[in-house]
């Protein structure tokens, strides 16, 4: 998979966030070097998805900072920032009233101000990369979950993001459809995209991630190369988590 923009490094610094009295993030830190993939693992409710949303400011943190190539994202216009950060959701969030092709060209035309022909050509090329060239004119509801998620990935990649965020991208999929989506994500990592992947797929984390970060109760308790995190976990809570999921 090819991307024409250069990736950036990503750093999350001491991010705090509370919804009322519920403290979801309590000083989370995360470092992803340029072109590397980080997998965030941890129990439900540990703040993984929320952390992801503070990176592209779908949720504004109460405290802390997010840096792209050392520059704080909090100084950017949030809409412009989100064009540089692709995001893929558990439920795909494709627009059901638009064809697959239009799902991808919408942002290209309205945000990147591309002409119709250029946008369509780019969208078709992107669809081809995720193996769905033949589905351009289908509606999202006519596709399987795995196909929909690959369209969502193509839609995000078409904007040439510098970072990609994946929020449990395969959790809503039937088991037999998971691998096709993971393969697309693994290719993307191999192509040098900076990625943060919230996932329950430990096999994927082990084989694709450069860094695995374990989150619990709103903080990253332990982070390191997958061999270290999976083979020699230090924190007792990580050991307990791994014993439950592996």
């Amino acid at each position, binding site marked *: 998979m090819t991307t024409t923009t250069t990736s950036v490094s990503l750093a999350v610094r001491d991010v705090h966030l509370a919804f009322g009295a519920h403290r979801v993030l309590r000083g989370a830190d995360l470092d992803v070097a340029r072109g590397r993939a980080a997998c965030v693992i941890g129990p439900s409710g540990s703040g993984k998805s929320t952390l992801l949303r503070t990176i592209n400011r779908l949720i504004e943190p109460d405290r802390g900072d997010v840096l792209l190539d050392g520059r704080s994202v909090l100084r950017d216009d949030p809409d412009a920032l989100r064009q540089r950060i692709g995001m893929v959701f558990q439920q795909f969030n494709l627009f059901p009233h638009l064809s697959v092709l239009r799902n991808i060209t919408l942002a290209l035309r309205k945000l990147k101000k591309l002409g119709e022909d250029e946008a369509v050509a780019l969208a078709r090329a992107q669809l081809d990369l995720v193996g769905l060239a033949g589905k351009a004119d289908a*509606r999202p509801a006519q596709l399987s979950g795995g196909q929909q998620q690959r369209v969502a990935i193509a839609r995000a990649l078409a904007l040439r993001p510098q970072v990609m965020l994946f929020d449990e991208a395969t959790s809503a999929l039937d088991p037999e*459809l998971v691998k096709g989506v993971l393969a697309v994500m693994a290719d993307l*990592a191999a192509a040098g995209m900076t990625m943060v992947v919230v996932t329950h797929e430990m096999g994927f984390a082990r084989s694709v991630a450069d860094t695995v970060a374990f989150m619990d109760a709103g903080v990253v308790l332990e982070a390191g190369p997958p061999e270290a995190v999976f083979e020699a976990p230090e924190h007792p809570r990580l050991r307990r988590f791994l014993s439950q999921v592996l």
Partner: protein
Amino acid sequence: MDPLSTLWETFFDWDSMREALPEMLTVGLPNTLTLAVSAALLGSVLGMLLAVAGISRTRWLRWPARVYTDVFRGLPAAATILLIGVGLAPLGMQVWGPNPYPLGVLALSLIAAAYLGEIFRAGILSVEAAQLEGARALGFSWGEAMRLVIIPQGVRRVLPAWVNQLIALIKDSSLVYFLGLLASQRELFRIGQDYAANTGNQSALLLAGLFYLLLTVPLTHAVNWLDRRLRQGRPAAPPEPEPDAEPVDVTPSGREPR
């Protein structure tokens, strides 16, 4: 004459109907459609503005929208039409002359907008929050996300209710007769009523009624058809099994340790 045939001729006097028919077709029908269609267009635009104001995060938009809706839904249509059509007539006289149509259309639109605003608002609110998040994540502003993603879906879901409102508009357009119409400005109801008054039987009014049914009944069925179609979705092919569901090695080929 026996009472039954008197009753029959009160409603079904073919000669009275035949007499009224040409004017109904050439004057009444076009005028009714002009009123209803222009009020539908203007009312839909105003209704959409009301709906967006009604879900706005700014209280200074939400509140006026709320008050407007309460007022124009709560007043009898006849009162609104008289208040606007007669009350603003001196003003209208200076802008477009004595024609009662612009103010009639305005009054009908203002009434329809109150109902349509609530319909659109319900539709917009029914769109899943994930759609807004998906659009915002691509970099669309709140306004762009609403306009390009949320509103198109929301409106689609309430099309049946929207058509219902059009039916109400067609019927309510008869009320502009309050504003005083020249012979050429009369719509279906007024023409029927005039002929009924002249002939002393109600057949022409009944004919006007048939014209209304001719317009509204097909729309009613269109609503049902639309509703079914929206519920079941377009006749589409079900999702096919993934052609590429065969096992894929998630380890990328030729990936060097980084």
